[in-house]
């Protein structure tokens, strides 16, 4: 469980980036952290694995105060995939890159080999296994970064803007992976601006604005609430925009639609009524 107890954080004195923030995430939850640029999303995420320690208040990971432990120790429990894959790739080969975290955490040789192979296969990178990571394309590097964090099989996985610069196919693959991850008892935290992606990927959305938690609920509650979206400078999903515009002409039309199936059903009902 992740527990933020009245957390304040400032990089520069008297300029809080996180204010009065309390939040609980239970095992098995998949959460999207959303908000405008500079809202404090990445700052919040960095508190979970102890890269940042709160100025005031406490962050607990499975009951342990992050102040009393180190990021390296927390690395076994928390995996953090940074926005830019180039910020973490360094090894000579893909195998060594994926094995880096496992070696740091003193996994046995057999265990390392087994996991490296498993994750190379899972992310369709086996054919490059002896190549340099720097020869891969942008999308492949992103996948390698993901694989090299996931191979530790952390209980908490944080993905910072995973859909940036990814084509539709890669996004779908990421969704498939997240879907398999959701079935486990792990926590997934997604830092993103991509509302369309969040709708499909998570079952809870936490909205930050100027360092404060302004909303916390299901995608349906959050993404149909235009005033919250506007405050956090998020573009409503196209379906929500569609529903709101249609509701102006047809007041009975539901505005909290999330999926295409729901929208088709609602439109069909109206068509049937007007016939």
């Amino acid at each position, binding site marked *: 469980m992740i527990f933020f107890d009245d957390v304040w954080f400032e990089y520069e004195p008297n300029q809080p980036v996180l204010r009065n923030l309390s939040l609980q995430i239970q095992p098995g939850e998949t959460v999207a952290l959303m908000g405008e640029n500079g809202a404090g999303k990445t700052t919040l995420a960095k508190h979970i694995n102890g890269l940042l320690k709160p100025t005031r208040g406490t962050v607990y990971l499975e009951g342990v105060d992050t102040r009393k432990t180190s990021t390296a120790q927390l690395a076994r429990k928390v995996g*953090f995939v940074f926005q830019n894959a*180039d*910020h*973490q*790739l*360094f*090894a000579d080969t893909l195998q060594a890159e994926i094995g*880096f*975290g496992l070696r740091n955490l003193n996994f046995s040789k057999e265990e390392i080999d087994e996991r490296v192979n498993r994750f190379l296969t899972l992310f369709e990178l086996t054919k490059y296994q002896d190549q340099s990571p*720097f020869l891969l394309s942008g999308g492949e590097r992103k996948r390698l970064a993901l694989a090299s964090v996931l191979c530790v099989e952390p209980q908490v996985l944080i993905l910072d803007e995973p859909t940036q610069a990814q084509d539709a196919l890669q996004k779908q693959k990421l969704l498939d992976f997240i879907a398999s991850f959701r079935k486990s008892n792990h926590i997934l935290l997604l830092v993103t601006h991509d509302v369309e992606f969040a709708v499909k990927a998570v079952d809870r959305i936490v909205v930050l604005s100027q360092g404060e938690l302004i909303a916390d609920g299901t995608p349906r509650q959050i993404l149909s609430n235009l005033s919250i979206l506007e405050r956090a400078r998020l573009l409503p999903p196209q379906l929500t925009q569609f529903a709101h515009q249609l509701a102006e002409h047809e007041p009975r039309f539901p505005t909290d639609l999330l999926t295409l199936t729901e929208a088709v059903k609602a439109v069909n009902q109206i068509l049937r009524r007007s016939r």
Partner: protein
Amino acid sequence: MKRHMAAIFEAFRFKQKHTFMHGLDPRTTFFMAVCFSVLAMLFLELLPLLIIILSMLPFVLLAKSIGQWSRSLKGLAFLAGFILIINSYFISFSFAVSTVLRLTALMTAFSIFFLTVHPDDFAQALIEMHIPYEFAFAFSMAVRYVPTIATETETIRDAQMSRGLELESGNILQRVRNYIPILIPVIVSSIRRALQVAESLESRAFGSTASRTSLYGLKLRKRDFALMIYSLLLLLLGLYVTFILRTMLPSPLPDWFFWTFPF
């Protein structure tokens, strides 16, 4: 320790202020920095080095940058500690201290320069000194990217620590090796960025005209000449002491000049 890299860079990050030092011609400040650095390289005795540092402090004060300067000294503490231990072990404590003082003097000289001169103004100064525009531009770009790379280095360190990298474990050799997963991404992403910047420069017609004109020119004023003469005189004094007085026998220099720690 955690933020020491960024703290060192803090000493070289230009901040726009309206002070006597910021109003100087960049050529003057550069000349001063060079004079004081040469002075620092001339001496390895404790007290003369201390005098050199003290003689620079008024300029740090004039630039209203004591805060930034002292923060960068703290950033230097890690390196200084390292030098102190190694040199006291192999040579002597006095030598170790004077090496640290020399480093401080060099850093102070150049931090005055970088804190008070806007990179664009320095590029302009180079151009007016008839250095080709491409070189002047390359220089100002290099300076411009120091803070960017510093920030990026921190992100990279965070990313690798999240993968269980421990920087402060093992013996000295191991500790140096711990930095490889940070250094390689820094270098690789700097090269990637350099290529991108080159492409974007070319797409904006960089170098399309042979001779460029400038909107703002630079002009040396009386205070510039005064400060240049002041630094030149100090440099000449330093050269005189080193190459004339120090070689004379018996030494005409006072005892305090050679003072060292009695252990």
